């Protein structure tokens, strides 16, 4: 029924759909299903899905690396973190590696400012980053 009663669940449903997808994104089919479930129109679901930074409508890597570049992190050297990651992964910000392992994103403050520069990879938080630490983390993930 199109009368609004389940609209408020849309963000939770989008989040679930993305988490259950190996490539961390929400497919068009899922968007349509969510529209049906919530009573929202396609454009309303699309509008919500594209508004929020954590959602992606395009396939991403299995690991989505989100590096913060807000005040504290920028001050404490997020640029060098980006440089290392771009070099190691051979991609630019916003891109995904060739075999779909990693995506590199720049994001706003993650609330880990006391351990700036910081990043999140999927659900895990990493702070007090150094180029060396980054390399170690990547090695660890590549092994999995």
């Amino acid at each position, binding site marked *: 029924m199109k009368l609004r009663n389940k*609209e*408020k*669940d*849309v*963000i*939770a449903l*989008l*989040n679930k759909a993305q988490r259950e997808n190996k490539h961390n994104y929400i497919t068009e089919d899922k968007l349509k299903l969510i529209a049906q479930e*919530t009573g*929202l129109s396609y454009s*309303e679901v699309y*509008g*919500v899905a594209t*508004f*929020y*930074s*954590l*959602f992606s409508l395009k396939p991403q890597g299995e690991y989505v690396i989100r590096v913060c*570049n*807000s*005040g*504290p992190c*920028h*001050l*404490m050297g997020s640029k060098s973190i980006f440089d290392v990651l771009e070099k190691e992964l051979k991609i630019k910000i916003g891109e995904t590696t060739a075999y779909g392992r990693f995506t590199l994103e720049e*994001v*706003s*403050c*993650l*609330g*880990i*400012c*006391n*351990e*700036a520069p910081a990043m*999140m990879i999927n*659900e895990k*938080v990493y702070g007090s980053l150094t180029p060396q630490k980054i390399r170690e983390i990547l090695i660890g993930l590549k092994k999995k």
Partner: protein
Amino acid sequence: MIKELKSPLRVVLCNYGRINPESIEEYIAQDGYEAVGKVLRKMRPEQVLSEIKASGLQGRGGAAFPTGLKWEFTAKAKDTPKYIICNADEGEPGTFKDRAILEGDPHKIIEGMIIAGYAVGTHYGYIYIRGEYLLSINRFNKALKQAREHRFLGNDIFGSGFNFQIDIHQGAGSYVCGEETALMESLEGRRGNPRFKPPFPPSSGLWGKPTLINNVETLANIIPIILKGADWFRTLGTKECPGTKVYAISGHVKETGLIEAPMGITLREIIINYAQGMRDGKFKMAQVGGTAGAILGEDMLDVPLDYASLREKGLVLGSGAILVMNETTCALDMLKCFLNFFERESCGKCIPGRVGTKKLLELATAISRGEGSKDDIDLMLHTAKVMQKTSLCALGQSPILPISTILKYFREEITEHIKGRCPTGVCKI
């Protein structure tokens, strides 16, 4: 865990780092749920309201609105059902105090929400936690489950006949959803665009119903006020700004982390006594209140960091985030960083916000590349002023503060860039 820098006083952070946040028993052992018990068994809603009003508590999210007054407005509203929302969408750069409370002492917030619900007359509470705070969400979920098992949530709490339930709503990556009306839009399942005010949430909020929205830290203060009284609360802090504040320190200091202190502590005290001094060089500037906050130069190191004192000087306390910067920092580079944040986080609804933030960044970037002109600096300032007067919400209204204060101290440094030189060597011209 976030480092706690040997706070002079631990009211909000009393349990932080001292109890297992996943154990309700340990929370109870520290007088946990005593306040709820007291309120539901011995106080009428009006009494709770007058206690909070008397305490002089102000909103700790940044707006500093008198909490008791907000509760009263919501309580007096006639329409039903009412809602209360805990705003845990902590997104102001440099701020991580709410995360600490949610990760370290979630039950305190549950308690605060129950009491708030009782006082204003609602059975429905939501907590909007930003999507990146997964540990907070996880722990809060556990805490809710435990609270329900212990009958602190649900029907007939403490046999008082009062029912209350809390649901978590998880954010999905948007700073502007920390703005209360954008938060409600998001909660209702829409894009996080702010609404125009008036009407204000206490009269028309979630789904058009009276809604009370409080910050995490604000709600954390409810428990000590109830247990120890408004009078006690007033003995802390300053006359106009009673109580404590949890300050978040980051940047070029030896020790970064949280410190809870009576309202009115100064920047110098924080840096020297708690953050163990500057790191790698002399103090150049500090931004207080997050990216939307003002820049404080050396001349401001002794200003009491409370809402009123800072407002007097044309500055803001905001969330209480403090970013300390030493002389290796390029003022223009940081300004670009701040403007980049606004541009990325703008919701896009209003023209000054959507296009203004973009143009500000473009102007600052041009200057930093040696491609700008003096007029650009003035245009930046002027645009930010117009944005302050016309933007729909605080996001567009904010850039004027960092821009004008940076220019106040570092206009020359910025002008150097126009001539093709970055004094600190940070900007590649």
